């Protein structure tokens, strides 16, 4: 985004040209922001911290989806199912086998990645809504398998209760303490997500998205890169699922439904596809909106007691549907696009261009 670069900043080497953070002020802002973020548990209440934890976990899942949908152009309606695989792998390893969270996390990521590979296979032959249906099948099949195949291991219809993870011998069983596990991992995954798209792999993904036949003619192994994108996508879902399991500490297949998968896709639409910043915007926007509708629903229910029970769910689902419809109609490139426009016009002020 050369246009948003402050005047007088010149590149003297390739490394400088490729850097994401260019100026001293950007470094200061970044470090200051991180320090603020990590001080947050000292003064924020558990309720807000839990919202932030949920946002961070969702950001990881949507980053994966962004690499698959935004960069590679494949459609995935089953991200929540892959998250469930990660959550249950992690849950079973820690609760049933007594392994540490730090071993369970990579195992969960790999297990979800493998499942993602299997359900990514149809992408080699079909695209568009056919692929959407193939991943929808994943979304419907995985929870049913978790519920029914070995209920003695997964807990079946009962929730699987998971011990809290520990770091440096400290048990992380509160919103404050698990914040220090979730946020660094989110930052790390964001860093990877941002950078993977700047490598040769990322450019191959974009080529496959723009036209897979043309990409193949240019010597890109479409087979390999589509599966790789599915693998990375579900890897991210696995990490998110594992964190979710240890954050919620009780998991059930109902926490990973088609609704959640569509929600993730909606966050991608709202934020803007193919942009790591957009992912963060989209997740924060929709999660905050969800919290607001929850509060609103509760206050409506206190005024009209007859509506209690339905109004909250109805409000949050309708508002969500409406937001996606409005974004698709009026801002199909998402908040990230709006943000770029804002940055450009801020820099050029007072001139229009």
């Amino acid at each position, binding site marked *: 985004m050369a246009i948003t670069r402050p005047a007088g900043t010149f590149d003297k080497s390739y490394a400088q040209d490729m850097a994401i953070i260019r100026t001293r002020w950007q470094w200061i802002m970044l470090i200051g922001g991180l320090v603020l973020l990590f001080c947050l548990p000292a003064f924020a209440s558990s309720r807000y911290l839990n919202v932030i934890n949920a946002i961070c976990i969702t950001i990881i899942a949507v980053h994966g989806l962004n690499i698959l949908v935004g960069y590679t152009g494949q459609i995935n309606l089953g991200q929540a199912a892959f998250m469930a695989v990660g959550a249950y792998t992690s849950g079973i390893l820690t609760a049933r086998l007594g392994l540490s969270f730090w071993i369970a996390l990579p195992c969960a990521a790999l297990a979800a990645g493998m499942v993602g590979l299997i359900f990514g296979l*149809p992408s080699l032959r079909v695209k568009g809504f056919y692929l959407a*249906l*193939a991943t929808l099948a994943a979304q419907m*099949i995985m929870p049913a398998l978790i519920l029914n195949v070995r209920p003695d291991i997964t807990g079946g219809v009962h929730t699987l209760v998971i011990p809290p993870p520990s770091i440096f011998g400290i048990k992380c069983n509160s919103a404050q303490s698990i914040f220090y596990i979730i946020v660094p991992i989110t930052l790390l995954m964001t860093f990877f997500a941002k950078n993977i798209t700047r490598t040769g792999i990322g450019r191959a993904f974009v080529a496959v998205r723009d036209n897979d036949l043309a990409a193949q003619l240019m010597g890109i192994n479409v087979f390999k890169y589509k599966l790789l994108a599915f693998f990375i996508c579900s890897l991210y879902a696995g990490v998110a699922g594992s964190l979710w399991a240890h954050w919620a500490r009780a998991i059930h297949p109902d926490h990973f439904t088609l609704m959640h998968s569509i929600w993730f896709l909606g966050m991608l*639409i709202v934020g803007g596809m193919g942009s790591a910043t957009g992912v963060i915007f989209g997740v924060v926007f929709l999660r905050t909106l969800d919290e607001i509708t929850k509060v609103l629903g509760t206050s409506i229910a206190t005024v009209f007691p007859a509506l209690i029970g339905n109004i909250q769910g109805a409000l949050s*689902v309708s508002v969500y*549907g409406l937001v996606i419809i409005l974004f698709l109609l009026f801002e199909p490139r998402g908040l990230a696009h709006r943000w770029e426009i804002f940055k450009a016009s801020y820099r050029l002020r007072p001139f229009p261009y």
Partner: protein
Amino acid sequence: MEALLQYLANGLLVGGVYALIAMGIVIIYKASGIFNFAVGQMMMFGAFFCWTFIEQLGLPPLLSLLLSLIAGAALGLLIERFTLRKLIGQPVLSAIMMTLAVSYFLGGQALGFFGSYLRPLPRIFSADPINLGGVVLASDLLWSFITAMVVFGLLALFYQRSRMGLAMRATAESHQIAQARGINVRSVFSLTWALAGIVATIGGILLGYRLGLSNLLASIGLKAFPAVILGGVESIAGALIGGLVVGVLETLAGGLINPWIMEITPYIIILLVLVFMPEGLFGLKRIERI
């Protein structure tokens, strides 16, 4: 043997309704290339319309049926007019997300207006099962199957004989050629959605009559997707055969293997068809050019 026949019969009868819902998806796809994920919610709304007219307003069943068909058509028209018409030329993900978002919006509205508890539709047909030489046919199932097949036949006749039906088929063939022959493609899209709204309403009423009305009804719409994929998205005959096959396989898997397998059989069918035979039984093979 007796049990097998029983499962086959049940599966066929259930599949008839799936076929009808699948038909609603196919006609939209043929005309506009949009896969309607909101079909389940349209069904549910159709059934709720019918319930409102009968139970809340106390209208006679036949009149309320007619009114709910009109309301269903209006719902289809509204969806097309305000959401999908503006998406022409956008990538396929936008259309998919749009129908999903519409399904969410409708689902939320239904939850708000009608609540989440189960409501029965009034009985019209007698509930006595019909015994055919050892195979027992539940009368609800039988009636809904017969209705579905009659509607299917009428729609096929509409597509074969009526001027509008021919215009729709021409549009499905090629938008440009249809326009060159003086067909208003935009109004064909609208009418297709209205027709799909009617079909979904009928499907919803049939399912609601058998299972009772609740927002779970919408999730049965998902069962029509395998039928569409198996039959081939462009084929109306494929929707019929796909629906029947999915119904039979689902019932057989549920009866002979394990009840929970029944829930995921349709989706296993989707995966197998997409990996080994992506165009389905009667779909068109797509040839891509750069």
